């Protein structure tokens, strides 16, 4: 096979694939970064702007947004009468939980009056993986699993566990983070409506027994002990120009506790308040000490709900109507700050308990500076009466695990195996000297046994099994997350990729990119394994490497691809994600060669086909991830060893599959895959010319063959000076 014609074929496939993927889809209209009318987030008539009938089939009319968080009721005409047939909720009215992109998946959810999911529609998402690679229909199919399920059910990603009453959902391969976030959104949204309309019963919590030590507390003490808390929102947090003045600065506290209540309202005021509220009801005060925004809301109407503040305890949300509001005319505690707005809110639900932690939530809208669109956002702060304020101290509260913790727990065995693999490969490589000394040019099995095992495990277990193929898209995503919104939880949700990157970062600085690229990258391993298999089955005579002159020109292409992607990502992450299809990883591992349209399959299959005849063509010339890792490899701590004679000897360079050794015998660690072939020769006394020469000389002279030192030469024989004759 002629090298350049083969490359030309691959280039054609790449061009065809690029043209295909950059062309707009013919029919399918995707929700990727779909433009939603700004009214979606604020208009009372939600269903005028979103297709509510799609998620609540049969509904002919809808109410305006009601409740907090808001939802709408859907009605059908039956015998001339309006009948409630369900509810519709916009997910971003309930939670702004971000998915992998760092932005929420805007979902419209329909519920039956009995609390079962009736319909789900993705209105907008920013998930790069669903732009290409995995079809958007996969998310629709994932959502379909909720249809008919009860909003109060225990639903998780993974296997069903009937013994624990847990319903499992099939994840989307390669989009685990997205579906975990989506599950959280679905269950929170369903529960938010369910609790308001009585489908879900509120949790009953034991009431607090307050410890009254009769102290007269000043403001500073209240704050220091945590009995009064502060919630500050800065203008930039809601998309307004930065200012030293807060958007709103609130202080709040729980008034049922005698010491807190007396300190804030005075003895008489507090007793009057306690007399006004019934047993099992709770009072809290709120004052505004900074900012011009009203926490009561400028649009509040009589009989309505205060839509800017609420409490959350566990899954229960408590909102306030006009009857739940009392005036607070002053704060008695010495040292209290001056304030320009105040209120006492009453929680009239037995579900609330002052003994347990709760969150005070300020609900706001973030304004997108570019589009002017408003999106829902909430700011909260936890409040929990200090132990000393409660008889017997704080009760034990078992908080549910965060989603990423659940992932780590449920996949603990696989995570353990994967971590063991990474540690084992690093340990084997750290002991490379012992392995290369046991190997010879003709028998490299002491090294290859480990390397080939790593390849096979990497392809089967890591690539096809765990779908843990690192990609340049992750580098781009992290880069953007660093700039815009870094969330550890997001990255921890995919434990394999998370661990893999820790391994990659550490080993790149210690040894260079070769340990990952040459030993553990699933696609790289598959590529070189195909080359080795090709040679083993008699295709050696068709195998080739590009002339060094062409290699030295083409190796720069991968750097251009990397910088190109980085530059494009600054302007359009979506386009960068599309162009990142230059990596055939999604096609090979995440989606499957036969599950994609033909240009992708042709491109990936072409690269793998070429790999049979040329060693790692993608890694050498195209891989943007390889380029990104090659650059810091310039400053790896420990390189491979060379001898002075390597400047004229070509023995290693001829056998270097990575073409990383130049005509002067120098190794370019940016290109080296750490196959260790040259290190095997380095100590092979029959294959390394300087060593072989010395071996022959010593044998001829009858001198001992001393062990080979770290410098690659026999340890010199130093004649011992004859002992001086005794006088």
């Amino acid at each position, binding site marked *: 096979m002629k090298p350049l014609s083969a490359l030309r074929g691959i280039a054609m496939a790449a061009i065809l694939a690029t043209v295909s993927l950059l062309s707009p889809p013919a029919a399918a209209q995707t929700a990727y970064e779909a433009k939603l009318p700004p009214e979606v987030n604020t208009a009372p008539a939600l269903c005028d702007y979103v297709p509510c009938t799609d998620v609540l089939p049969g509904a002919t009319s809808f109410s305006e947004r009601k409740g907090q968080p808001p939802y709408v009721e859907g009605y059908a005409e039956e015998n001339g009468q309006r009948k409630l047939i369900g509810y519709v909720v916009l997910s971003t009215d309930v939670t702004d939980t971000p998915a992998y992109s760092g932005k929420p998946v805007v979902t419209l959810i329909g519920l039956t009056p009995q609390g079962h999911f009736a319909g789900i529609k993705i209105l907008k998402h920013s998930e790069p993986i669903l732009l290409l690679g995995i079809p958007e229909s996969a998310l629709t199919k994932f959502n379909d699993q909720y249809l008919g399920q009860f909003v109060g059910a225990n639903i998780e990603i993974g296997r069903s566990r009937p013994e624990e009453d847990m319903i499992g959902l099939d994840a989307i391969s390669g989009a685990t983070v997205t579906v975990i976030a989506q599950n959280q959104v679905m269950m929170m949204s369903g529960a938010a409506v369910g609790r308001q309309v009585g489908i879900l019963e509120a949790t009953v919590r034991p009431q607090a027994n307050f410890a009254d030590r009769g102290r007269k507390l000043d403001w500073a003490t209240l704050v220091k002990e945590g009995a009064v808390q502060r919630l500050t929102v*800065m203008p*930039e947090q809601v998309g307004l*120009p*930065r200012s030293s003045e807060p958007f709103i600065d609130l202080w709040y506290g729980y008034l049922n506790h005698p010491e807190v209540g007396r300190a804030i309202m005075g003895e008489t005021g507090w007793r009057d308040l306690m007399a006004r509220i019934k047993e099992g009801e709770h009072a809290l005060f709120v004052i505004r000490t900074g900012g011009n925004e009203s926490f009561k809301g400028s649009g509040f109407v009589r009989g309505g709900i205060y839509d800017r503040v609420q409490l959350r305890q566990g899954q229960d949300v408590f909102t306030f109507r006009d009857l739940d509001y009392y005036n607070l005319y002053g704060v008695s505690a010495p040292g209290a700050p001056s304030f320009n707005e105040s209120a006492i809110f009453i929680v009239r639900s037995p579900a609330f308990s002052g003994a347990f932690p709760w969150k005070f939530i300020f609900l706001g809208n973030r304004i997108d500076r570019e589009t002017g669109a408003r999106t829902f956002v909430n700011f909260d702060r936890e409040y929990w009466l200090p132990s000393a304020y409660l008889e017997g101290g704080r009760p034990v509260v078992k908080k549910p695990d965060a989603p990423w913790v659940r992932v780590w727990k449920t996949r603990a065995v696989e995570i353990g195996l994967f971590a063991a693999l990474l540690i084992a490969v690093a340990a084997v490589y750290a002991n490379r000297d012992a392995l290369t000394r046991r190997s010879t040019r003709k028998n490299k099995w002491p090294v290859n046994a480990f390397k080939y095992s790593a390849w096979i495990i990497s392809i089967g277990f890591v690539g096809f099994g765990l779908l843990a193929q690192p990609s340049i898209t992750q580098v781009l995503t992290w880069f953007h997350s*660093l*700039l*815009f*919104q870094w969330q550890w939880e997001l990255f921890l949700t995919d434990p394999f990729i998370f661990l893999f990157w820790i391994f990659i970062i550490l080993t790149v600085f210690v040894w260079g990119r070769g340990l990952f690229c040459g030993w553990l990258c699933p696609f790289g391993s598959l590529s070189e394994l195909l080359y080795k298999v090709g040679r083993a089955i008699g295709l050696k005579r068709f195998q080739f490497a590009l002339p060094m002159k062409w290699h030295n020109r083409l190796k720069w292409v991968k750097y251009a691809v990397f910088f190109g992607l980085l530059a494009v990502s*600054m302007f359009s992450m979506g386009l960068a994600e599309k162009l990142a299809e230059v990596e055939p990883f999604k096609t090979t591992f995440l989606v499957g060669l036969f599950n994609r349209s033909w240009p992708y399959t042709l491109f990936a299959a072409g690269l793998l086909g070429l790999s049979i005849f040329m060693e790692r063509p993608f890694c050498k010339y195209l891989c943007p991830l390889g380029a990104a890792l090659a*650059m*810091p490899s*310039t*400053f790896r*701590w*420990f*390189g491979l*060893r*060379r*001898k*002075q004679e*390597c*400047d004229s000897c070509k023995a290693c360079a001829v056998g270097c599959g990575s073409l990383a050794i130049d005509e*002067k*015998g*120098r*190794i*370019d*660690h*940016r290109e080296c895959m750490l196959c260790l072939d040259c290190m095997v020769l380095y100590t092979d006394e029959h294959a390394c010319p300087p060593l072989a020469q010395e071996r022959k000389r010593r044998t001829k002279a009858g001198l001992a063959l001393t062990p080979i030192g770290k410098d690659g030469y026999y340890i010199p024989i130093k004649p011992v000076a004859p002992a001086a004759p005794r006088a």
Partner: protein
Amino acid sequence: MVDPRILTEAVEPPYAGGGAASRLLSEIWDHLWPWSRNGFQHQRFVQATGLALAAAASVAWVLAAMGDMTPGAIIGWWFGWSVFEVVVRLGSKPYVKDGPWWGSRYRRASVMDMICYVGFKNLLIGATLFLALKSLGLVQI
């Protein structure tokens, strides 16, 4: 005769041979100050332009700290300066460290070596400054 144990020929920066502490300080200075007397003697225009561009990039950071510059503009300035820093350093301090960072082996920098060095160094400096400004609430996203 070429030394195959090192990718480009070994060189010694002016501060080579000093004690560990003075070498560390000199290296920190090297990372932050790309110009040299020798560079000015050989390519006065490039070095002077580099100084002007560095001053402009510094002003861009100050404007960012005052809230008058968007993240995209800061990144643009920093990237632009980084490209020019490669040119400046190739004329003034054309060497990079080889091997362990705590060692004292230096070698002549090729263009790619310098791109890697400046790219990596400025990514760290830029990220640190950016995160510092962000955590202080001086840059808005």
